[in-house]
């Protein structure tokens, strides 16, 4: 039995190394002297750690601007997604309106349609609306999502009807009920949805690549992809760029992982 325990834990450590070694290596190379990583065998630990690559990254590229773009867009996407999805999710769970269940079922079937099918016409719609090459165009697909509405609806179903009815009898308006009773009881799912929206927006690649063609407005992933084509041999600089792109989401995940994982589990049984 003790042999089994040893084997299990050795396998766990090996798999853990597989998962994080590339990230640790990224950190290590990002503080190496320029040119240091271009040796064989590749050094694992920097001989003389330096912040030179980060200084170069922010001084001679527009990385700070791209970082600000990504941060702003991720925050706006989160705010939009929270507003629209939470109101709709609550309505689908607790308010009555004609065709409610039919509309909801229709939304769910739309989950089988990959987003890329809509992408080219969406580009043309954005062009008509003057949104190409603007932050508005980037944000358009994140305003409302079927997944977001579904997530909030599942959670809102648990709000007791008696509580809402009592407030109505007291003469509270629907909006007051939403603000004073519904929103506070949706707390955890708001954090879950916010985490999903923020991480999704921060990491999105294909849509920003299509809709933004002005270098100044690029998001961090798009800028990093361009930069890595220009600086193919600058290992250390590119690793610093990767650290800048990854650190915010990794920290956010570690802090909020409970919420992220509960959302993921809800999303996996969406059928």
């Amino acid at each position, binding site marked *: 039995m003790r042999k089994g325990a040893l084997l299990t834990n050795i396998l766990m450590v090996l*798999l853990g190394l597989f998962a994080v070694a590339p990230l640790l290596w990224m950190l290590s190379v990002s503080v190496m002297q320029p040119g240091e990583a271009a040796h064989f065998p590749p050094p694992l630990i920097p001989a003389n750690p330096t912040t030179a690559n980060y200084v170069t990254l922010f001084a001679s590229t527009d990385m700070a601007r791209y970082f600000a773009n990504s941060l702003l867009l991720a925050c706006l996407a989160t705010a939009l997604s929270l507003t629209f999805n939470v109101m709709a999710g609550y309505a689908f769970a607790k308010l009555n*309106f004609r065709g409610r269940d039919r509309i909801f079922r229709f939304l769910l079937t739309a989950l089988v349609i990959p987003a890329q099918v809509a992408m080219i016409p969406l580009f043309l719609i954005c062009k008509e609306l003057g949104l190409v090459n603007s932050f508005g165009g980037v944000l358009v697909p994140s305003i409302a999502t079927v997944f977001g509405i579904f997530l909030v609806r599942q959670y809102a179903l648990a709000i007791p009807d008696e509580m809402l009815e009592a407030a109505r009898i007291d003469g509270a308006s629907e909006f007051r009920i939403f603000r004073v009773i519904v929103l506070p009881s949706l707390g955890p799912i708001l954090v879950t949805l916010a985490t999903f929206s923020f*991480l999704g927006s921060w990491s999105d690649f294909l849509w920003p690549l299509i809709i933004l063609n002005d270098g100044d407005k690029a998001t961090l992933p798009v800028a990093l992809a361009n930069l890595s084509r220009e600086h193919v041999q600058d290992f250390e600089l590119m690793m610093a760029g990767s650290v800048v792109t990854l650190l915010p989401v990794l920290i956010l995940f570690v802090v909020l992982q409970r919420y992220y994982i509960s959302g993921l589990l809800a999303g996996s049984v969406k059928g």
Partner: protein
Amino acid sequence: MKREGAAWIFVAPALAALGLFFFLPVVAALVLSFTDFDIYSLADIRNLRFVGLDNYLTLLRTHLFWKALGNTLYFVVLGVPLSIALSLGAALLINSKLARFKGLFRTLYFAPVVTTLVAVAVIWRYLLHTKYGLINWGLGGFGIDPIDWLGDPHWAMPAIVIFAVWKNFGYNMIILLAGLQTIPDELYEAAKIDGAGRWAQFRHVTLPALAPVMLVVSILTMAGYFQLFAEPYVMTQGGPVESTVSVLYFMFEQGFKWWNLGFATSVAFVLFVILFAITLVQLKLSQRWSDP
């Protein structure tokens, strides 16, 4: 009906956004795929012509489309089973009573999932570097000659598979772990009393109990893997010798490099139909297995 009015105020903004920015584009995509929408139509819509099934017929005769479809299938066929196997292995390890520091390891295994794809693709491009890459150095320790991972058409797609499996295995692990935790201990106790060893317990208790979750996981993973795009875009630009051009990569180039938007939309639709058909087949198969 004041309350019905209030309900619509809650739901209408989201429905309007979904309608305008998702459902309308999907319907428009179907129409667009029957037109020759290109850079001239983009300049002046009067240049637009309906061409019936021409885009689809052209697609059938386009060598690079078949190549892209083949590459994507290769990626799916190699990547999906590997990814699910590693996810299952990780879930079994974390679920094991013998394992220690479960919370820590769960977080470590999941970390690649939340990373930004472009940033980790940049990292892996260097890990896979022919001359300075850690992976070739490690293989050298086993006496294996350096492999030109991203420069050799035979190795480029397997390299992308390894990267994708690393990136994604934690996602399915969480779902499978939740599935494992719903299997009652009594089932294992009963199997042990019947003299079942570890392997027999896994085959006759764990796998059958996990089957519904496995179905969800395989459908989600397959749908995700068919949408391969950013990995080849960042790591190989579709090369070498078109060996990593995927269906979406082909669509992106047709649409936004050559501005053949009508043609590109037909590519998107073919991808959708393939995905839909495969999902249906998986659901049918699972029904047959569950009621013999």
